[in-house]
Every structure is written in C-alpha cells, then in structure tokens.
C-alpha cells in the first residue's frame, strides 16, 4: 500500500524530528508506532497523511497518491465541532466531498451504530462522555471507508476502563472495516494488545529501531493470556535496548 523510504524531517529551529525512517504498510495491516514522547511518531503520521512534507526520502503509494477520504485521521483529542451533533460531526467528511445530507445519513447512522453510538445521533459533544466523543471521532474517520486509518494516541487521555473497552472495540471495527491502521502510542501494553506489527522508535532524531511481529489471537481473555504477557515483555526489552 505505502512504502516509506528513508524519510527525514527537520523543523525550523534545527529540531530534527525524523531521520532515515523506512517502513512498508500493506493492506489490512495494524501497525503500532511505539516510542517515548518526541521520537517523531506523530511527525511520521502527519507525513503519511500528507499534512506535512519530508525534507529527505520519499513516500510511495501503490496505485498513486490517496484521494480525499482515502485516509481517516483520529487525533489525541476528539476534536469535534462543538456546535454540531454527533451525526453532523460524522457527516462532515462526506459533506466536504459534496454529498447531500439525505444521501449521507444512512451511511452516517450505520457507522455510528458500528462504534456503539446508536441512539446518540442528535447528541452534541458536550452531552457525551470523553469515551463517547472519541467514538464519534473514530466514526468520523471511518465514514468515508478509508483505506488507511491513522490514529495519534487516541486513547491517551481516557481512563483505563474506557481505554480497554475502546481498544477491544477498535479491533472489532478494524476487522469489520478491513482497512489498514497505523496507531501511534507510547504504551507498550496498548501496542501489544492492538497491533500485528509493533514498530519501535528512538528519539532525537526519531528513527525506526526495530519491528516486532505479533501473533496474538485477540479475544476476551487476551490480557490474561501468557502470550500477551510475553509479547509485552519482549516489546519492553526491545524498547529498553532501543533507548540505549
């Protein structure tokens, strides 16, 4: 789907956010970018989204660059329009693509149901909990049926119970949607629970140090599975090595 070849990004003021970062994304992947704050994870995500341009290297898309709607983006905060209802927030990407409200609403309601928000279509963000707002944000990212879903620490600001629930639901949504997910996190547990591939990054300048593959079978008991504990331990050791 996408080949990232030795990309570098130097910000004005001399901060080198990324150097020689290479990564290949395939259809249906679930990749976690794991590393401490300031290692260039979010910068890499913005480069993939086309919101920023690399100073070095290249991003090569199979079949040409993505069209608007091919990429969904979920930010750390839900970043919803506070004056719009849940359905209007989810309708926004379709509206920007020129769809009428009537034509878009079946799709909007379906994706809201898929993220567990059936019945909250008319609620405004201030009437929803933090977890529900994040679900609206995920629904907004999914409504265009993107090929690639980029998520920048979306659950970092949520409490642990909500985070666990949303992580499990995200895996269901990923399986149902069949898109590729790149998930930025600084939580080893989160990366191990969610991803098929865990990409470890080191800071200043941000580099991709190594990649750990996961063969976990996700289910209700995953967090108690010894294989999950072993993957967490392996990832933690890998991260410790990378940071040395």
């Amino acid at each position, binding site marked *: 789907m996408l080949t990232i070849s030795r990309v570098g990004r130097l910000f004005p003021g001399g901060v080198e956010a990324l150097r020689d970062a290479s990564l290949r994304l395939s259809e249906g992947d679930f990749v976690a970018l794991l590393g401490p704050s300031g290692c260039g994870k979010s910068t890499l995500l913005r480069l993939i989204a086309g*919101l920023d341009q690399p100073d070095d290297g290249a991003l090569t898309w199979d079949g040409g660059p993505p069209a608007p709607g091919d990429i969904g*983006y979920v930010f750390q905060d839900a970043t919803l*329009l506070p*004056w719009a209802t849940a359905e209007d927030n989810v309708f*926004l990407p379709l509206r920007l693509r020129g769809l009428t409200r009537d034509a878009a609403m079946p799709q909007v309601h379906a994706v809201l149901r898929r993220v567990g928000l059936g019945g909250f279509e008319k609620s405004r963000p201030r009437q929803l909990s933090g977890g529900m707002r994040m679900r609206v944000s995920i629904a907004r990212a999914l409504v*265009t049926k993107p090929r690639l879903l980029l998520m920048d620490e979306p659950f970092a600001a949520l409490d642990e119970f909500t985070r666990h629930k949303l992580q499990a639901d995200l895996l269901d949504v990923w399986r149902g949607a069949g898109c590729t997910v790149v998930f930025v996190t600084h939580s080893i547990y989160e990366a191990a629970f969610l991803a098929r591939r865990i990409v470890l990054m080191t800071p200043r300048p941000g580099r991709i140090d190594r990649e750990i593959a996961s063969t976990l079978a996700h289910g209700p008991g995953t967090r108690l599975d010894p294989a999950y504990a072993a993957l967490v331990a392996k990832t933690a050791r890998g991260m410790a090595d990378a940071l040395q």
Partner: protein
Amino acid sequence: MKWAPALFGLLALALWEGAVRIGEVPVYILPGPIAVVSAFVADPVGLLQSLGSTLFVTFAALIVAAVLGVAMAVAMSASRLAQAAIQPWAVALQVTPLPAIAPLIIIWVGDPFVALVVCATIVAFFPLFANTATGLASPPPELNDLFRLYGASRWRTMALLRLPAALPYFLSGLRISGGLALVGAVVAELVAGSGGFASGLAYRILEASFRLEMPRMFAALVLLALAGILLNFGLGAVGQAILRRRGLA
C-alpha cells in the same frame, strides 16, 4: 437576594432625596429624584422621541460596525496581505479619540444622521472586529488539519469551521459594542448639538444644561443609563439564546 439590587436602589434614591431636602441643595445644583421624575412626566414624549433618535443612531451604527467588523476580520483571516494592510488602521481607529475627530466627520459627511452613524460606528467597530478575528483563529490546528485532509477549500473551511467557531466571540463583541455604540452616538450628538443640530437625547442634555434645567438634564441622563443597561442585557440575552440553540451554552 433577588430583590437586593432593587432594594438597594430604592434606599439610595431615598437617601438622595433626603439629603437634597435636608441640605436644601438648590435644584440647579442637584435635583432630587422626585424633581427628576417630575421633569420626565412634564415632557415624556419629547424625551422619549429624543431617546428613540439616539437609539436609532446606535442600532444603525451597531449594524454597520458588525458588517464591517466581520467583513474585515474575515478578509484578515483569509489573507496575510489583508492582515498586514488592515490591522494597523483598525488599531489607529481604535485609539483615535472620537471627540477629536467628530467635528471633522460632521463637516465632511454633511448629512447629520449619516455623520452621527459614522461617529458611533468608529467607536463600536473595534470590539466586533477584534473579537471576530480572535474567534476566526480559534479552531484548534487539528481541526484545520482535518479540513485539509478532506480537501476542503479555504472558503469551505471558513464557512463550516471558522465562522461557526467565531460566533461566540462575535456575540461577546456585539454586547460590548452595543454599549460603545450608544456612547459614540451620544458623544457625536453632543458635538453635533453644540453645532446646532437638534436631535437625540444628548442634545436634550446640552439644551437643558444651557437653560440650567437640571431636573430635565438628569431625566435625560437616567433615560440614557436605562437604555444602556437594557441594551447590554438585551444583547446578552440574545447572544445566550443563540448560543443555547447552537449547543454552545
């Protein structure tokens, strides 16, 4: 608790009346509240007509200031060139004292009503302009990124993101500018009134002061103060209703 402001006001009026009577203060120095009410009752139509004239100028100026303020804030938000061109002039307009330029405006414009509206607009313009400009720049960068990601044009982003985000700021500016437009209208009427243009409540104040009709002057002042309070509360209530309807309050 709810009646505390009214009770305090009545007590203050009673003390005022008492002090004037006990101290035998001449009415041309300080009239008591009863004399002020009597002055209003003697000519309610004349004073209310003048108040209507002042409020007409105030609302006309507020509308012009709102249109100009929003238009210039939008232009500034859309173009750095416009920002560089507009901002210094907007600040210059804000810091120029109205009494200093009102006589010139009245001479240059010619038509007294238009001249008054121009003067009041100058005073009312800046809070609307500055607040709207702040509101247009208020959406978080992530939302701007989202609009870019979905290929939204600059004007689509303006219509669907920036303008709705600026609404609470605009309404807050409108409330401030309402009071300022009234002040601007009164100052302009005072300048115009001293030049012989007989209109508005400020002219009545001027006229009464020349004739040493202090109760009538106070009656006009009280009407102005009440109009200012009602304007402030009215614009605040309208703003709150709009924000509630939009789910923002």
